[in-house]
């Protein structure tokens, strides 16, 4: 048995270290360390409750709007208010803008450059992958970055700026969209749609969204020549490298559901482990057994949770707590969202090969095809002249919960207001779920499980298969510990 410490782990958001025990050419055990602690939950204590809208987005520069949305939702439940239809649509659009931009950045900037590594020279797709995805120098940097930049101009209209807006309020949107701006928003969406259809998919978004099974996806891939769109190239690489056999975790998936509509959430909430069941918020807990955290109780519901850093704690190896659902390990993210919501392609893929590197990436790209058309509908749903924001007061004592889906999955904020001030604020981010350490029973978190069995050649200090598995989760380390 040899031990390998992999870090700094770049092309993820924030700092990450992974310790691998290797024997017989494969990982036998993994420990995931989130090596940075900032203490937002402590910083928020004693603040005016509305100040959470300033601090929460600054937990993370890539999930900034997601953190705002969860904070606004927690404040709204504490105040007992809900947004008007315009406010709901504006909030959905801002959140969708960030979530899709993150999926897009993950694919082009973080995940795909690993296939342009020299280790893959000689593979039939290598020349194409290298020209397109080479870090910093590949052609995708020159056309995907501007496409993302222009897509994020939606933020200029709806949120003032990105990251770190204050436009998302408990009662809706502080930004009241004017009639002339609605047309410009639609133009930006059409422009992004055109880029995706031309460059990423080489097909209409609706056609991609309608792919209904693994067999149909194979047929879709085979009907196109190599190099016809970046998704096609990924599917070819995935087949060649058998990425569906890599990085399988627990196959228990959690999603809080996302994008509030009149009739419910656009993507439904649930837990899936072969069948869907409701998310019982009371069944969520955090276990600090292996985190550098003190506290009287090893396992707590987040509404009663504490954050007491203890860098010298014996047996601990990360700043990350271990969230569990009914005591079980669960995976969050686009794959979880789509398997819970019941997209037929994703249900079929997961029933065939579970949660793995290929399926995580496919689910993310599928969401681009599913959500851009919805965004077009939401902009057209704006009613100029009707309210954007409802108003209310914060009671002196109240509790609030905000549960939403960021790009990376289930994000929850638990707020406790006493004497008009924040008494308790606990956050569980999606990568807290995915990169959690072992719990009190010694059960490893999703990534720790996913890495077991990953092939590592003797003496390889930066095994590329490990890189694929880690990055397939699109981790956000600054959210993880906050």
């Amino acid at each position: 048995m040899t031990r390998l410490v992999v870090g700094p782990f770049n092309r993820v958001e924030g700092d990450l270290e992974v310790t691998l025990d290797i024997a017989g050419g494969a990982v036998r055990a993994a420990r995931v360390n989130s090596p940075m602690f900032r203490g937002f939950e402590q910083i928020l204590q004693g603040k005016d409750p509305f100040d959470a809208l300033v601090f929460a987005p600054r937990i993370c520069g890539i999930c900034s709007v997601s953190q705002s949305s969860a904070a606004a939702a927690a404040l709204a439940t504490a105040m007992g208010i809900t947004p008007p239809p315009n406010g709901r649509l504006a909030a959905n659009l801002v959140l969708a803008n960030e979530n899709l931009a993150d999926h897009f950045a993950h694919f082009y900037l973080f995940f795909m450059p690993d296939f342009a590594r020299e280790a893959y020279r000689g593979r039939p797709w290598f020349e194409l992958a290298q020209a397109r995805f080479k870090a910093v120098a590949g052609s995708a940097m020159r056309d995907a970055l501007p496409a993302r930049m222009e897509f994020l101009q939606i933020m200029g209209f709806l949120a003032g700026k990105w990251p770190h807006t204050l436009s998302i309020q408990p009662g809706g949107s502080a930004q009241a969209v004017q009639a002339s701006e609605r047309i410009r928003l639609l133009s930006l969406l059409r422009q992004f749609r055109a880029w995706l259809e031309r460059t990423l998919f080489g097909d209409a978004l609706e056609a991609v969204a309608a792919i209904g099974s693994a067999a149909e996806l194979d047929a879709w891939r085979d009907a196109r020549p190599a190099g016809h769109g970046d998704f096609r190239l990924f599917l070819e690489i995935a087949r060649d490298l058998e990425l569906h056999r890599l990085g399988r975790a627990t196959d228990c998936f959690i999603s809080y559901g996302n994008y509030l509509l009149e009739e419910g959430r656009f993507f439904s909430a649930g837990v899936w482990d072969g069948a869907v069941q409701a998310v019982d918020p009371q069944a969520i807990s955090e276990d600090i057994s292996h985190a550098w955290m003190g506290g009287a109780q090893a396992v707590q519901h987040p509404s009663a949770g504490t954050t007491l850093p203890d860098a010298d704690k014996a047996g601990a190896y990360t700043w990350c707590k271990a969230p569990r659902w009914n005591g079980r390990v669960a995976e969050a993210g686009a794959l979880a969202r789509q398997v819970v919501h019941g997209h037929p392609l994703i249900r079929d893929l997961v029933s065939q090969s579970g949660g793995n590197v290929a399926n995580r990436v496919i689910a993310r790209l599928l969401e681009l095809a599913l959500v851009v058309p919805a965004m077009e509908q939401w902009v057209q749903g704006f009613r100029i002249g009707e309210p954007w924001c409802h108003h209310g007061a914060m009671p002196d004592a109240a509790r609030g919960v905000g549960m939403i889906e960021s790009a990376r999955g289930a994000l929850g904020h638990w707020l406790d207001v006493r004497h008009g001030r924040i008494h308790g604020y606990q956050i569980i981010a999606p990568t807290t779920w995915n990169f959690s350490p072992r719990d009190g029973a010694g059960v490893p978190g999703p990534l720790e499980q996913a890495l077991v069995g990953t092939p590592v050649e003797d003496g390889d200090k930066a095994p590329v298969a490990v890189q694929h598995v880690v990055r397939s989760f699109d981790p956000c380390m600054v959210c993880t510990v906050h």
Partner: protein
Amino acid sequence: MKLNLVWLQSGGCGGCTMSLLCSDARDLFGQLRDASIEVLWHPALSEQTGFEAIEMLQACAEGEMPLDILCIEGALLRGPRGTGRFHMMSGTGKPMTEWVSRLAARARHTLAIGSCAAYGGITAAGTNPTDACGLQYDGTLRGGLLGGDYRSAGGLPVINVAGCPTHPGWVTDTLLSLALGGFDEKDLDPVGRPRLYADQLVHHGCARNEYYEFKASAEKPSDLGCLMENMGCKGTQAHADCNVRPWNGVGSCTKGGYACISCTEPGFEEPGHPFARTPKIAGIPIGLPSDMPKAWFVALAALSKSATPRRVRENATADHLVVTPAVRKTGLK
């Protein structure tokens, strides 16, 4: 001559990198390359990982590889108890504070990207649980990780490209100015910010200007009026060109419907009042516009309030124009 750039992240959110990637340069990295800036390593973008990155950083820290531009994003976490263990740089077993100190001792230019790296910022708020500070400032006080007297090899103190997040244009313009040569101390303001953006106030070019002139004020989120009197806006005091150099194509905080919280200023994270509420004494905001004598401000405010047109007054507390500007038939003179 090629300029090697190394970018590291510590006690922040990564948002300044995300902001940079919204640069309106069609080819951001091509533009940097054209200016001879070679990005040796950036944690969000580079191919090299793990030991490859450590070897490169080690070579820079030992002086074996020239380090021309060191960009640090995020506050420096000195805790617990001065150990720096709140952020151990992964794969190295060393605190990030140690890496930053070693690299800053070699760098020709050292840049703090964002208010966390400059002054401590949001990470230093509240009880400052991690003992966070900036590179050369601890809030409003000189000092920080590198000390008040620090100079990079090129002779300048830390260049504080402050902002939360910082604007992509502030970063690229500063980098391109350094590459062009001639950027010196007179190009920095008294708290180390490049004057290319810090010599302006957020108020300049604010689209709510007419409401400000007449003190026609917003009272609640989504109102169109001026955000200064009630909503906590510090745009008339905060140094930045946010309303002249738009964000994400067309935006700014005040255009987005909310107050400027003066995120480029040292200590902005602890304003001493709820961010979205203007502190007042006897109904008059405590924070007055920069360079404005209080008596004159009070007198002018009273006068302009009494002269507010009905259109401006009514629109100020609405979320869309309830009264549009009059169309006169006589032609404009």
